[in-house]
């Protein structure tokens, strides 16, 4: 086993800052003091490992995993698929990818969501899977609807799917949101625009992928995720501690 090396410094200029005035909730939930930079120790370079036995056969199929027998979720049927890579373009294999989302009307199955759009009795809204030996993952779901939220009086989130990825070290832990190509709400969203770099925002938009669509069945979008790269320990190996 290769000894874990530290991860590349996170490029904070491409990440959203803690406090973003336009995203109002961040104003009281953002630390006033800057984060203290910490060189990786063993606890940042390692992370949890998950096994196939922990994942059920329908866990990555949101069309079916909450549906009554013989039923299926309502909405635009899509495949969301992609590859998890690190900054060295190496596939991140066997890592846990989790998603959650609203239904086709923009309503979440959550006690705190009081939006008037109806729940879909055949849609739960969560999925999980492990990447394969090439870092690929795939989900089958419906395209979520946009929904209003109390930020400005007339704020609407673009259609999005929340994604969580682990990687191999706790320092790679990432939660993000996947948006869909062509959605005019993306440019207006203060959560999207919390990301300061327009090129970095593009990294959050999944293109339509007709090659992965299934004829007469469902469309597909491709969303690749890049986690921090890991150094090879060329000259230093000071981790061991003795």
């Amino acid at each position, binding site marked *: 086993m290769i000894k874990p090396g530290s991860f590349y410094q996170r490029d904070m200029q491409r990440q959203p800052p803690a406090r973003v005035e336009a995203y109002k909730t961040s104003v009281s*939930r953002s630390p006033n003091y800057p984060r203290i930079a*910490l060189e990786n120790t063993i606890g940042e370079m390692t992370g949890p490992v998950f096994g196939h036995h922990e994942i059920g056969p329908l866990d990555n199929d949101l069309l079916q995993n909450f549906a009554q027998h013989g039923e299926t979720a309502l909405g635009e049927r899509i495949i969301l698929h992609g590859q998890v890579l690190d900054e060295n373009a190496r596939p991140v294999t066997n890592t846990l990818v989790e998603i959650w989302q609203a239904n086709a009307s923009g309503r*979440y199955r959550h006690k*705190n969501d009081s939006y008037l759009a109806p729940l879909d009795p055949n849609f739960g809204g969560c999925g999980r899977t492990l990447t394969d030996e090439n870092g690929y993952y795939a989900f089958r779901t419906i395209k979520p609807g946009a929904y209003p939220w109390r930020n400005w009086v007339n704020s609407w989130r673009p259609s999005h799917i929340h994604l969580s990825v682990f990687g191999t070290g706790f320092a790679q832990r990432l939660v993000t949101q996947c948006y869909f190509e062509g959605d005019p709400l993306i440019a207006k969203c203060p*959560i999207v625009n919390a990301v300061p770099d327009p090129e970095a925002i593009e990294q959050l938009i999944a293109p339509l992928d007709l090659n992965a669509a299934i004829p007469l069945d469902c469309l597909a979008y491709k969303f690749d995720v890049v986690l921090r790269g890991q150094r090879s320990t060329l000259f230093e190996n000071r981790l061991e*501690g003795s």
Partner: protein
Amino acid sequence: MVQKLTYLQETPSQTAGPYVHIGFAPRATGIEIYNKDLGFDIAGPNAEGERIRVEGHIKDGIGAKVKDALIEVWQANSKGNYAGSDSAVEEGFRGWGRAVTDFETGLWRFETIKPGQTPAPNGRVQAPHINLWIVARGINLGLNTRLYFDDEEPANAADPTLNLIEQEERRASLLATRIIQSDAVVYNFDITLQGEGETVFFDI
């Protein structure tokens, strides 16, 4: 002309939003899809060491309790070994877990074992600690912090990370308070996102 660096760049983070429980703890919202939600058994039945409960609240800049957050935990076993590294841990010891703040009270808690000391670069030793990662609505990039134990004074005094914090006054924000209750050894750890007593967060 120089050669081009071909590194990819990390995907930007986005807030986990108000409905993070659907993805990470669906049973907390009454969704029964998974046969088991992950992360609610951190140490497992075979772990050696002292069984502890950790609990606390998260407060925002106004002092209000945050009731829609999710905390992930990553820790070593009682010997200071992490699961997933090349050191052995007890069977069933995962060292990773999740805690959800209660929708009504904002209290979060988890059961685990107290971790041991772990190695640091250059032959130094780290005081026992638990790595925490907090996501919630309003938090654009997950917040990393560390929980240390207030009954580990000599180890804390020598800990390389605590000593990185220039203002000594801020170090106390990372100390959990040991309380012996009738049914458990409890460490209380309140997290302040902003303002007076603000918790130290790390860029790891």
